[in-house]
């Protein structure tokens, strides 16, 4: 049980999550998938905050508050992202990244 009671575990967890998110962002061609991967990155950050708050931070609430804020912001981001993706779909009839390759140089 000790494993769950130390900071490093959570940091590694967050790091892994971050890595997964990053991989998703770079690898997935589907815009929604990319959006989700971004959310993963945010979640990784959230875990960090919680972990630090739990183990090292003097003030108990800070991390949680931040986490809540991040959730809200992430939700807003998701909303905006989806709306834009829909717009993309309307115009390009696809939600693939390859579709959006007009602007270059």
């Amino acid at each position, binding site marked *: 049980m000790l494993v769950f009671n130390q900071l490093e575990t959570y*940091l590694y967890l*967050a790091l892994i999550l*971050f890595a997964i*998110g990053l991989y998703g*962002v770079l690898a997935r061609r589907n*815009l929604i998938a*990319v*959006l989700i991967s*971004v959310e993963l*990155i*945010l979640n*990784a*950050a959230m875990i*960090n*905050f919680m*972990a*630090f708050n739990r183990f*090292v*931070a*003097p003030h108990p609430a*800070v*991390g949680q*508050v*931040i986490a809540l*804020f*991040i959730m809200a*912001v992430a939700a*807003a*981001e998701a909303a*905006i*992202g989806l*709306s*834009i*993706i829909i*717009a*993309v779909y309307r*115009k*390009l009839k696809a939600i693939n990244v390859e579709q*959006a*390759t*007009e*602007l270059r*140089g």
Partner: protein
Amino acid sequence: MTMLLFGPELYFLLVALVLFFFSLRRTPKVKADHTVATVLALVGFLVAVACIGQKGELFFKAYRVDLFSQIFKAALALGLFLVFMISRNLAGIEERLHAEFYLFLTTCTLGMMMLVSSVELLTIYVSLELSSYSLYILVPMRRGDDIDVEAGIKYLFIGAVSSGFMLFGLSYIFGATHSTYLTDIIPKMPELLASPIGLVGVLLSLAGFFFKLSVFPFHFWAPDVYQGGANQVVTFIATASKAAAVALVLRIAALGAGAGYDFAQALVILSIISMTLGNLVAIIQKDFKRMLAYSSIAHAGYVLIGILAFNEAGYSSAVYYALAYLIMNFTVFMVLNEVARDGRDLKIAELAGLYHRSPLLSMSLILGIFALAGVPPSIGFTGKLLLFTSAMNQGYFLLVLIGAVNGTISLYYYLRVIYAAYFIKGEGLPPIQLSWPTKMLNYALCATILFFGVAPDSIIELARAAVRTVL
């Protein structure tokens, strides 16, 4: 009573509400919206100027109101007002969306105003996102072909990823320093940077700020967004949001103040690459806005030079340059908007015959371009020289040398603009009629560019006073 410190923000919140109600109307009243929005923005500018002297702290010290922040707030309000002024014919955006255009610009301004005052990580994050999201929405609003959504999507994702990085970084900083207040963090900087985790944290969190400033390698959005976005929106991004970004980076760069040689070197390299890359690529651009995008990347590099000095002179010159950049860049964009009445993308060649179509505009263009190119007697020249001076005082000889050479390179594409405007004959193009406010605006801008270029003392003193509060 303390809420008065929050005056400008409150005011713009109010404006946002009003505009929100406008946006609910079934049948859009374009002219009315524009007039009201402009007037409100003007008033907002006045309010911000009125509050310039305020000092104080709000929200448990998470929010600091000082000269620095107030100056930038005034600048931002000014930027908003100017953008509204040139939004008279918003051909780039459908009528029914005009109200929302004003609304989101206002919210964006609000966000940035909060940004320049916030001294606490979470506050910074939230206000940053507030400003960014409004822009994310504004970019794809453009009417017409598909590039706008493409630009929007790229903007969104690059922005989202870098803000994700920033957040992740901030989490490490929080972990390493156990605090979210810059005031607590800054003293701990040295040992923070000594620890790998802190270093990674700072680095990652810089991503978010550099993204705003479009410093290499976070510049990828700029060209596409500039080209894809509606002209007025891009104008706002290119002026107000850049100023805010500079303010933000100034606040944060204080973090780097304690940093060691390597950290500064890293920044030096980034700044050199930014300006060189921006200038070189701008040379081959055909689209006017895209060219300006690359020039903005280069200018981000210049501003970084000032920030690198990590001292009062450097910061004050950076502030001076940010304000100057707002003015001169806006001048150019205003001309662009006037020439591209129908809201299309303007090729540089399409400036042809501008001299015959409207001498006044061509004069403004020439001044704006020369200011961007750093040719005297203009704010651009003075600002650049001050930046170089402060950097040289810190012994960055090579940096200054490269910066100066870059100035020459940049002149090439700036001169191409003037060449198009003054020399190519525009066959049969009608003269451009200007409304009297626009004329006034032209004169005002030219006067500003020249006057503060020759007599910069007042601005500089102001900037020094401001940065003293930051350091």
